[in-house]
Structure formats: C-alpha cells, structure tokens
C-alpha cells in the first residue's frame, strides 16, 4: 500500500494501518533502540512506546519525510529521554570525542574489517548514544545524510563531520585492541 494511503489511514486511527507500519519498520526501530540503549529489554520497551504513541503523534506529522524516517526520529528522541531519565548517560560527550579524534585523524583508512563482533560492540560503546545511532543508521541501515539531518535536526555538514569522527574513533579503538591483543 502506498505510504500516503497508510498515513491517511493512520490519521483516521486505523489499527490495520498501524499493523502494516509495524510489519515494515518495527525491526528497524528495535535495532536502532538497541544500538542506543545496549539493552534488549529496554529496546523492546522503546519499540512498544514508539508504536503506542504513533496514533497520537501522527496527527502532527505533515508527511514531509518518509514514515520510516519519522519513526527513527521518534525512536531517537525516546531513547535519549530514556537515557537522560535513567541517568545512565555517562558516555563520552561530543567535546571529549572531538579531542580524542583529533589525535587519530590522518592515520589513513587502510583498516581491514576483520575484527569480531564483540570488539566492534565495544568500539561502538566508546561513542555517545546519539552518535552511535547516527553511525548505525548511516552504515547499517543505509540512510542518506539528508535523512539523518532531518532525524537529528542538524545541518548535513555537522552530520558528516560527526560520522567521520565516529568512524575514526571506532577504527582507532579496534586497531589499538588488535595490536595489543
């Protein structure tokens, strides 16, 4: 079904339209939430929270972006609120990240992607939740920078810079662990 039709039905409160949205996007929402929260149960809670709020929130949705992009935005906001509420947001702040990244820039991008998943999880854990989710959406879900700019309400240039820095940080972490391992 066309997305505009689904949107129209959603605005009318159709449960079937919501089910279709669930079929199409629930997995993506869950994985994004999991990348941000690093906890399966909490990610499931966020997934359900997001879809429970869809019938009401969709009334304010103007349809200027894809429904999937809009859902990502709801998810990112819900996760950030959750992290702030839990006071577990003790990860690197952007400023600290910038300082660290400056030290690794210029080392070249000849990294071989043969690290294991656990190490990559740890490497991603070095990033702030928001940046981690940004990297996930770009590199795993193949979203455009334009979509990311809409989701995070940031200029495209800022998104590109943060992605670049995040990649450098993760690669540097992995390289360091590999050299010492």
């Amino acid at each position: 079904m066309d997305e505009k039709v689904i949107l129209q039905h959603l605005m009318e409160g159709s449960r079937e339209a919501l089910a279709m949205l669930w079929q199409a996007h629930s997995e993506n929402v869950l994985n994004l939430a999991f990348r941000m929260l690093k906890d399966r149960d909490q990610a499931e809670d966020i997934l359900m929270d997001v879809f429970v709020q869809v019938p009401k929130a969709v009334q304010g949705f103007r349809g200027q972006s894809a429904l999937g992009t809009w859902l990502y935005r709801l998810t990112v906001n819900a996760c950030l609120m959750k992290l702030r509420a839990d006071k577990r947001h003790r990860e690197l702040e952007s400023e600290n990240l910038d300082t660290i990244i400056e030290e690794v820039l210029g080392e070249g991008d000849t990294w071989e992607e043969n690290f294991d998943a656990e190490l990559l999880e740890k490497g991603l854990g070095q990033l702030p939740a928001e940046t981690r989710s940004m990297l996930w959406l770009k590199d795993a879900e193949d979203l455009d920078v334009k979509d990311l700019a809409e989701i995070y309400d940031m200029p495209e240039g800022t998104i590109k810079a943060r992605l670049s820095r995040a990649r450098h940080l993760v690669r540097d972490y992995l390289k360091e662990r590999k050299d010492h391992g």
Partner: protein
Amino acid sequence: MANKIDFSKLERLTPRADSWDKVCKRLDAAAKATPVGKIISIKAWYSAIPIAASIALVSLTVLLPALTHTDATETISINSSAPSEVMSWYSSLGNSTSDDFDTLEETVGFSYLIKE
C-alpha cells in the same frame, strides 16, 4: 562506501512475538480510559478561556444597556403619585376670589418632594 563500518557481523534483533499484542492492549486500554469526546486537553483550555472571556465581555457590553434601558419620555400621572393634599391645592389654584395666595403647607410639599 569503502569508508563504512561493517555492521554485518553484529546481531540483528527481531521484535518479540508478543510485542505487537502488547502494543494493541496498551492502545485499547488508553482508548477505554479516555473516551473520545470527553477530553478537553489543557492546550484547548488555554485557548478557550481567553476566547470565552472575550465573548462574555462583548455580550455584557451589548446586553447590559438594553436590560437597564428605560423610556426617557415615559409619562407619570401626577394623580397616581401625588398625595390628596397636593391635588386639592393644585385644583383650587385660580378658583378663589380672595386676593390671598393660597400656599401649600410646607410640610406637605416637603414630604412630597422627599417621597419623589
């Protein structure tokens, strides 16, 4: 893009089987708790109060003068309002052959004025 981080080795989750049912239950519970048409949101109140106050003010401005309006040219018969002493004095004016001017007793006239 060659610069991308390869996430393909990471676990990809799928929603639990009962998650959709839980979403439906929460939506049903929310719908029962808040029947349509009985809710007036706080935001609605915020905008409704000044509008209602404005309407009331305009209505009062229009209605109050209409309610308190009296006919400025309404005739009140002196026969129905003046005491008999005053009427008697009034009707006898000019009928007397005496040169003396028959004056109304002060207390009667004064009490009439006070009454009016």
